C-alpha cells in the first residue's frame, strides 16, 4: 500500500507581469488502488498540479509538500520522481524525432527498473500491451510521438503506463481529442493498470464522459487553484447538470 500526499501546495509561474500564483493551497491524499477524478473549468490550474507533481521546470512550488510514502517528492529530480513510481500521462505528449518508440520504451524501462528488461519477456510484454490497445506493430518502429494522431499519442501514453507499472498515475485530460472507440480502448488500459498493479490515479478531466469507463472513488471540484468540493460519483453527475458556475460564484472575491 502506497500513499501520495499533497499538502497545502502553492505553485507559481513566471509571466511577463511577474510571478503569478496558480495553485493556492491544494491538499489531496491518494492511496493505492484509488481513483480520484479532478474536475474543473479551463484555467483552474488542474494541469499545473499535474506538471508540478512531475517536476516541470516552468512551475515553481512556493510552499507546501508532496510526499510519496513519506519521501519528499519536491526534493527529487524529474527522472527520480518517475523512478520513485510517479507517472504523468501528458495532455500534449512531446515529439522526439529520430528516437524510435521501441528504443525509447526499453531505455525508459531500464532506467525505471535499474536494469535492462529480459529481451524475450519484454518483447512479449510490449506486443501484448500494444495488442490490448489496438496498436499496429509498425508503431514500435516509428519515432516517439512524431506524426502521431491525437488518438495515437494518447494510446502511446497509456502503453507506457501499462509497461512501466507506476505506483501512481496522473492522467492529464487523457480523454481530450479521443473518439468514443479510442476512449473505450484507452480507458480499458487504465483499468488494467489499476487492477494489475494496484495503481492509484488522479484523473484530470473537463467532462464526465470518461467516468463512464473509469469509475472514480472520489470526485473533486477544482476551481481557481484549489479543491472547493469533494464527493463521490454523484458529484460528477451534478456537475454534468449544473456546471461549475455555482462554485465560481462562491469563489468570487468578496
Amino acid at each position, binding site marked *: 500500500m502506497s500513499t501520495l500526499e499533497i499538502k497545502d501546495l502553492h505553485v507559481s509561474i513566471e509571466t511577463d507581469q511577474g510571478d503569478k500564483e496558480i495553485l493556492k493551497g491544494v491538499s489531496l491524499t491518494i492511496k493505492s488502488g484509488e481513483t480520484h477524478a479532478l474536475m474543473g473549468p479551463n484555467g483552474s490550474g488542474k494541469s499545473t498540479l499535474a506538471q508540478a507533481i*512531475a517536476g516541470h*521546470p516552468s512551475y515553481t512550488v512556493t510552499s507546501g509538500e508532496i510526499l510519496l510514502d513519506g519521501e519528499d517528492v519536491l526534493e527529487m529530480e524529474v*527522472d527520480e520522481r*518517475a*523512478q520513485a513510481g510517479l507517472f504523468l500521462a501528458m495532455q500534449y505528449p512531446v515529439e522526439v*524525432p*529520430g*528516437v524510435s518508440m521501441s528504443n525509447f520504451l526499453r*531505455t525508459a524501462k531500464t*532506467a525505471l527498473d535499474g536494469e535492462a528488461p529480459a529481451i524475450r519477456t519484454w518483447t512479449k510484454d510490449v506486443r501484448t500491451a500494444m495488442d490490448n490497445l489496438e496498436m499496429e506493430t509498425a508503431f514500435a518502429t516509428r519515432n516517439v510521438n512524431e506524426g502521431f494522431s491525437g488518438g495515437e499519442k494518447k494510446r502511446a501514453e497509456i502503453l507506457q503506463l501499462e509497461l512501466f507499472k507506476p505506483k501512481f498515475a496522473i492522467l492529464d485530460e487523457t480523454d481530450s481529442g479521443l473518439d468514443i472507440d479510442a476512449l473505450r480502448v484507452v480507458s480499458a488500459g487504465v483499468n488494467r493498470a489499476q487492477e494489475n498493479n494496484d495503481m492509484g490515479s488522479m484523473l484530470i478531466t473537463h467532462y464526465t464522459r470518461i467516468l463512464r469507463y473509469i469509475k472514480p472513488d472520489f470526485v473533486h471540484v477544482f476551481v481557481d487553484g484549489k479543491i472547493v468540493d469533494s464527493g463521490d460519483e454523484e458529484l460528477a453527475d451534478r456537475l454534468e447538470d449544473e456546471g461549475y458556475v455555482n462554485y465560481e460564484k462562491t469563489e468570487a472575491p468578496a
Partner: protein
Amino acid sequence: MANTDATTLDEGPDLLIPGMGEEGEKLVVQQAETQPAEDEETKFGTSRADRKTSFDLADFPVLTGEEEDWRFTPLHRLANLHLPEGDDNLLTGAAPAVTVTDQDGVSIETVGRDDQRLGSFMVPDDRTSAVAWNSFSEATVVTIADNVNIEEPVKISVEGNSTDPAAQHIHVAIGANSKVNLVVNQTGKAVVSQNMEFAIGEGATANVTSIQAWDDETVHVGSQQASLGKDSTFKHVVITYGGSLVRLTPITRFAGEGATTNMYGLYFADAGQHMEHRIFIDHSTNNCTSDALYKGALQGKGARSVWVGDVLIRGNTSGTNSFEKNENLLLSEGAQADSIPNLEIETGIIDSGGHASSVGRFDEQQLFYLMARGIPEPLARKLIVRGFLNEIIQKIGIEDVEAAVTEVMEEEIADLEL
C-alpha cells in the same frame, strides 16, 4: 531558440512572357506594372540567377572576403587554395588518390584534361572551383552503363596523403534508366580544391553519399554539381565531420522535366572546425521536385558552421515542388551556426514551396518528456542528439554506411559534456 530565415521574392520585369495567359503570370504582370523598374546595379548579385559561372579564372577576381558567397569563410584558413597572390600560380600538389570498386556495369578511367566529357555538366561558379578547373592535370571518370541496376554500392575512395595545395576533378556519369548507390569516402590529409560532376541520365535513379571524414589538418573546398536528365531521381547525402575547414557547394540543375532531387546533409563540428555547406537548387524547367534537409550539431569553442540554401524557381517554369530546411543544435558554449535559406520564386505558378531554419539549444520539452519517463538527464540529452542526427543518417539508405556513420556519431556524442 533563435530563428533566422529569409525569403526573396523577385518579380522583375524580365520574367514576363508575352502572350502567357495563365492566372499566375497575369498576377505577376499586374504587380510588375505597379513596381518601379528595378535598378540594374541593385539587382546584380541579389539573385542567385545572376551568379557568374565560367571556366575562365579571370572572371573570378582575387577574393577580398567581402563577396556574398565568401563572407563567412575565414580566407586565411584556405591554405592558398583561392590563389590570394593572383592567378599565375596554379595548384600543383598531388591530388588525393582515387580508387573505385571494380564492378560489372561500372567503368573507371583516368583521363587528361582535354577529355571532352569533363566540364560538360558543370561550370565553376566561384573562384576556388575555377582554380581547381584550371589546375588539375588528370581526372577520374566513372561511368555507369545504361539500363543497369547495380546492386552493390559503388564505393569511391578519395584518400589524401599530402598537404601541398592540390586540385582534383572527378566526373561521374550515370546511364539512362540505371539504378545505382554511390558512396564517396574522403579521408586522410589534404589541402584540396575539388570539382565533382554527376551527370544523371534520363530516368536514372542515383543515390550518392559523400562523406568528408578527413584528418584534422585537412582543408577541403569542393563543388559537387549534378545535372538531372528527364524523369531522373538524384539523392545527394553529405556527411561532414572531419577536417580543419570544409566548404562544400552542392548544386543540382535540372536538364529535363519531371526530375526529383533530395539533398540531405549532416555536419558535426567540433572545437575549431569550420564547416560550410552552400547548396543551390536551380528549378529551370517544369514539374521538378526538390527537398533539402541539412542538420548540424556543434560542440566546443570555435566550432563553426555555415549553411546557405539557395533555391531558385525560375520564371519560365511551372509545376515545381520545393522545400528546404536547416536545423542546428548548439551543444556547448562558444559554438556558432549561421543558417540562411534563400528561396527565390520568379513565377506564380508553383505547386508548393517553402523553407525553414533554426539554430537552437536543447528542446526543454523533449528533455522533460524523456526525464518524466525516468531517463536521467545525461542519457536523455544523448538520446535527443542521437535522434536529431539519425534523421539524416536514415536517409543514406545503405546499411553498412549507415552503421559506420552511426558509430562515428556515437563516438562524437560519447565525449559530450552535457
